[in-house]
């Protein structure tokens, strides 16, 4: 596994663009195909937005720590917060049959990532771990480059 990249931002929406930019650079460095990179960035952005909304319950200056790992063919992201904990079994995507505003962030994460887990077994906050298996994406991206 290569050294993880760690980034800590204050829990204010104005810093979400920063975390997207850093992750874009990192994924470019590892030659992750554009479409996959866009989707991974969406997941991280949504996860951080959820922390701001639900764990810290609004914009503030509490820490959101993001750690990015490239482990062989896997890309792993961990998002750590120190806010309110909730029952992780209740974090589920909503049914998409009803067209209504809101509630899509968890759907995006579950749809795009291969593994998603929330750990609240700690004194404060939550550790979200998301894994994307990149093998197929990297192969298809390299084949596109050859064309």
């Amino acid at each position: 596994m290569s050294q993880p990249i760690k980034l800590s931002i204050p829990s204010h929406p104005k810093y979400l663009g920063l975390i997207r930019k850093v992750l874009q650079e990192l994924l470019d460095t590892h030659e992750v195909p554009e479409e996959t990179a866009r989707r991974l960035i969406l997941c991280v952005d949504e996860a951080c937005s959820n922390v701001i909304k639900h764990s810290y319950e609004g914009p503030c200056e509490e820490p959101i720590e993001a750690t990015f790992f490239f482990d062989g063919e896997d890309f792993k992201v961990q998002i750590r917060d120190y806010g309110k904990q909730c029952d992780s079994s209740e974090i589920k995507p909503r049914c998409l049959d009803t067209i209504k505003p809101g509630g899509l962030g968890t759907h995006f994460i579950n749809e795009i990532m291969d593994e998603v887990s929330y750990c609240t077994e700690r004194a404060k906050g939550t550790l979200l771990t998301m894994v994307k298996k990149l093998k197929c994406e990297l192969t298809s991206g390299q084949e596109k480059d050859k064309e």
Partner: protein
Amino acid sequence: MSIELKLEHPADNTVTVSIQGDIDMSSSTKVRDTLTPLFQDNNKAIIVDLSGVSYIDSSGIATLVEGLQWSHSNQSKFRLASMTPGVKDVFEIARLLTVFEVFDTKEEALAP
């Protein structure tokens, strides 16, 4: 990151909203604050030009769904034009691409 919104009135009761910048949790409030008054006017068609938007998250989608709901309850048009690939992909994952009226260009979206 800042977001810019430009309103134009190309015809009676028709307004186009051109958005430039990322639509995320920090900027979707500005988009909502711009669109909401348009729902209360006598508009019959609102066209949202997304050609300047390379990123949209669930809060941005939620704002546009509010426009869709306005159009359904007022027998009006709420159309999206010129989606970039990144934005189109997010709509696709949300399974909303066929729910909205989506056009390749603003001009096509302005057609009756």
